[in-house]
C-alpha cells in the first residue's frame, strides 16, 4: 500500500497538477500579476521570470475533446497538441499575457502558427532553437534570448536588467536544486514519496509563482525527512518519455506494484538535472550555454544520443532501477526513433524495457497499458 505523508504543500502540488489555474496562480493573477505560457522545457523560463511574469508550462489538463482544434489540426497530430490548442481556442488560456514557442517538434511549432492567428493572447513569440550543440549554436541561442528579452521589454514597457536576470537564474536554480533533493530521497529503498506524487510536484514547479513554489517544496522536503511510505512495491521503475503531465497515469503503473523512482522526462529530471552558471559575467550567455550544452538534451537535438543514453544508464545505476518503461505519444516521430535506439542499448545492458504508445487522455490507451505493464513486471521476475 502506498500512501502519502500528511503535507499541505504536497496537497497543493497535487491540486496544481490537477488544474490549470491553481489557487496560488489565481491569487497572483488577482493581484495583477502576469503569466506567460510556454510549451517545452527548452523555453527560457528565467527570462520570463526576469520580466516579472510567472512562467507557466502549457498542459491540457482537464481537456476532454478536441472539437475546436480539429478544424485546424488533423488526426495525425500529437494529441497533447490538439488538446492544448483546443483549450486555447476555448479560452481556457485567456489568462496568459504571452506565450513563447520553439521549433521543438513538428506538432508544437504548428500550434504557434495556429495559436497566433486564432487565440487572442496579446503576445505570441517564436524562438529558433538550434539542433546542434556547439559554441556556434550557443551564440545563436543567446541572440534568440536577447530577441525574446527585447520583445518582452517592448510588450510590457519594462527594462529587463542583468540584475533581474541574475535574480531569476538564482530562483530557477533554487527550484532545480530542491527538485533534485526530492529525487535524492527516491534513491532510498523505501522512498518517502511515490512517482505519481513526484510528478505532481514537478508539474506544480511549472505552474506556480516560483518563489512561493520553492518555499513550499522546501517545506515538503522537511516533512518527507524520515518518512517511508512506499514499502510494498515489487519493482523500481524508471520512466523515459516526452510530455507526461498526468500523475494518474503513473499511479496506474504504481497500483500494479511498480514504484517509479526516477525518469528521463521533460516534466521530470531533464528539466532540472543541471544548473545555470550563476557566476557568469553575462547572464544571457549563461542561459544560452545552459539550454544548448548543459541541460540534459532531448531527442530533437541532433547527435546527442550517446549522451542521452548515458543519462538513462546513470539513472538506472543511481536509482537501482529494475526496469524501464518508455512512453511515446502516438505520432511523435522524435520519440519513435529515440525509443528504438534506446531499446538496443538497454537490451545490450540487460535492462528490462517496455515501450508503449500513449494518447494524451488516459482513457484511450490505459486499459492496454495496464495489461502490458503487468506482463512486463512479471517478466522482470525475482521480486525484491
Amino acid at each position, binding site marked *: 500500500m502506498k500512501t502519502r505523508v500528511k503535507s499541505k504543500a504536497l496537497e497543493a502540488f497535487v491540486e496544481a497538477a490537477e488544474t490549470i489555474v491553481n489557487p496560488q496562480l489565481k491569487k497572483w493573477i488577482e493581484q495583477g500579476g502576469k503569466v506567460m505560457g510556454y510549451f517545452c522545457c527548452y523555453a527560457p523560463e528565467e527570462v520570463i521570470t526576469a520580466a516579472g511574469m510567472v512562467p507557466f508550462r502549457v498542459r491540457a489538463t482537464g481537456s476532454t475533446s478536441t472539437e475546436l482544434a480539429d478544424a485546424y*489540426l488533423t488526426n495525425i497530430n500529437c494529441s497533447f497538441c490538439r488538446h492544448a490548442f483546443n483549450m486555447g481556442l476555448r479560452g481556457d488560456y485567456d489568462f496568459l499575457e504571452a506565450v513563447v514557442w520553439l521549433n521543438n517538434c513538428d506538432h508544437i511549432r504548428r500550434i504557434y*502558427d495556429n495559436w497566433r492567428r486564432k487565440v487572442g493572447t496579446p503576445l505570441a513569440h517564436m524562438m529558433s532553437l538550434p539542433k546542434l550543440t556547439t559554441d556556434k549554436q550557443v551564440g545563436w541561442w543567446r541572440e534568440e534570448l536577447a530577441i525574446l528579452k527585447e520583445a518582452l521589454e517592448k510588450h510590457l514597457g519594462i527594462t529587463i536588467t542583468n540584475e533581474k536576470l541574475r535574480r531569476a537564474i538564482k530562483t530557477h536554480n533554487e527550484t532545480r536544486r530542491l527538485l533534485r533533493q526530492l529525487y535524492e530521497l527516491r534513491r532510498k529503498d523505501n522512498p518517502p514519496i511515490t512517482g505519481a506524487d513526484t510528478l505532481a510536484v514537478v508539474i506544480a514547479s511549472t505552474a506556480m509563482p516560483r518563489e512561493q513554489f520553492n518555499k513550499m517544496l522546501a517545506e515538503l522536503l522537511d516533512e518527507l525527512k524520515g518518512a517511508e511510505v512506499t514499502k510494498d512495491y515489487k519493482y523500481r521503475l524508471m520512466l523515459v518519455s516526452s510530455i507526461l503531465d498526468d500523475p494518474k497515469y503513473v499511479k496506474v503503473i504504481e497500483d500494479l506494484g511498480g514504484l517509479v523512482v526516477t525518469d528521463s522526462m521533460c516534466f521530470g529530471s531533464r528539466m532540472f538535472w543541471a544548473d545555470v552558471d550563476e557566476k557568469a559575467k553575462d547572464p544571457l550567455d549563461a542561459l544560452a550555454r545552459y539550454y544548448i550544452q548543459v541541460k540534459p538534451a532531448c531527442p530533437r537535438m541532433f547527435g546527442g544520443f550517446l549522451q542521452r543514453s548515458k543519462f538513462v544508464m546513470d539513472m538506472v545505476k543511481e536509482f537501482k532501477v529494475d526496469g524501464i518503461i518508455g512512453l511515446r505519444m502516438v505520432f511523435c516521430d522524435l520519440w519513435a526513433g529515440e525509443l528504438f535506439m534506446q531499446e538496443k542499448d538497454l537490451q545490450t545492458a540487460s535492462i528490462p524495457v517496455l515501450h508503449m504508445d500513449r494518447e494524451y487522455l488516459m482513457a484511450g490507451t490505459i486499459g492496454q497499458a495496464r495489461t502490458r505493464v503487468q506482463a512486463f513486471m512479471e517478466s522482470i521476475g525475482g521480486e525484491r
Partner: protein
Amino acid sequence: MTGRSMNDKCLQKLVQERDMLGMMVETFTKTSTGIDLHYVPTKAFVDHHNEIIRRYISGEPFITSYFCCAPEIYTAMDLPWNTFLTPAFTGAITPTFHDEIDASGKMFTGMDLCTIIRLAGYYVEEDLVPPPTAVIAMIHPCDGINVVHQVMAKNEKWNKIPVFGADPPYWEDERSYEYYADELKKMVEFLQKHTGLPLDTSRLREVIKESNKQITLWQEWNDLRRAVPCPHGGGMGLEMFGEATTVHTGMPVGTAWMKDVIADAESLVRQGKGAVPKERIRLFWFDILSLGLTLELFPWLEQEWGAVVAMEMFGYSPYTQIDTSTEDSMFRGLAVRALHEVPMIRQARGVADLFLTDIERIVKDWKIDCVVYPGYMGHKDGSGSAGLMREKCRELGVPFLYIGMDLFDDRYTTLDELKDKFSKFFTSMGMG
C-alpha cells in the same frame, strides 16, 4: 582492393532499383513533337546508380546527401551522392515493397512514423544501403529526418562513418542566411577532409551559373504550364525538379534536356494541346509525388475527370538567381536556396506562412480550380497547417481537398478509396 563486390547485400536495393528504372527507360516513346521527355532523367538515375555501385566497390568516395543540401557543391566537387530515401519513391515498382514497409513498422514503435523515414531506417538496419564515405545529414524540415539520421549514426555498420549536419535556423532573414552560409562552408571543409576531393571556387562558380540557367528554364517551363490547357501534367514537375536539384544539378546535360522540354511545351501550347485531352479541372497537388501516384492516380484523374495537375509542390520553382561574384555571395545564395527555395523544405521547415502564400500565388498564376493537400501521414507539420490552408482556399474561393493518406503505402488509403474521395469531392464542388 576493398574486398567489396556486386554481391554485397547492401547493393541489393540499389541494383533492384537500377534494373527497374532501366526497364522503364526501354519503354519510353517519343512525344508528338519528337522528344523523348522521360529518357534523360530516368537514364540519369540508372547511370547514377551504376556510378554509386562502382564507387562502392572500388572504394572511391561518394556520400549520402539530399537535394536540399546544396547539391551544386557536390557537382563542383565531382562527388556523387546517394539518397537512401529513393526506394520509397520508386517502391510502386518493387515487388517486395509491402513486406519491407511492414517490417519497418515492426522495427520502430509504430506505423505512424513517416513511411520514407521508417523504410530508410529499416534499409540501414538491414544492411540494404551501401555505406558511403561520409554522410551529410539532413536535420530539417521534419522530426522524422532528424531521427533517422540519429538512428543511422548509431547503427553498428554506420557509426564509424563521419556525419555532418548543417544546423537549420527557423527564420528566413539575413541573419539566418548568413548563419546557414557559414554552415555550408563548414560542410565543404568536412567534405574536403573526408573525401579528399577539393572544391575549386571557379568550378563552383561555373556550376552555379549553369544551375542558374536551369532555374530560369524551369521557371520558363512553369510559365508555359499557366496555359489552358496545361501542356504538361504533374509527373513532369517531378522530373524537372529531379534534373535541377538532383541528378544533373548545374550540368549542361540537364540544361539541354530542359530546353527540349520547353520546346515540347511551347509546341503544345501553340497547338492548343494539353496534357489531358479535354482539360476540365486544374489541380494544385501540394505535397511530394511518388511513382505510384504518377503511374496510377494521376492517369485516372486525367481520364475520368479531365483533371490535370497544373502545379505541384515539387514542380514549383520560386527560386532566385545566385550572385556568383564572390565566394561569399555564392554561399549566401546557396543558403537562401537550401532554406527558403527548395520545395518542401521551403514550406515545412519554418513558420507555416509559406504554405499559405504559395497557395495564393499558385492558385492565381496557374488558374487552379482546386487545391489538394494529400495529408501525407509523414507530414505532421503540414497536417498541422491544414486548417489554415483550408481557410486560405476559402478566402480565394477555391475548393480545398484534404485526403489523409500515405503517399507510398497504397494500403493506407487504397487507390479505390482515393478515387472515391476525388469523385465525391469533384461532384460536390460541381466540378468536372
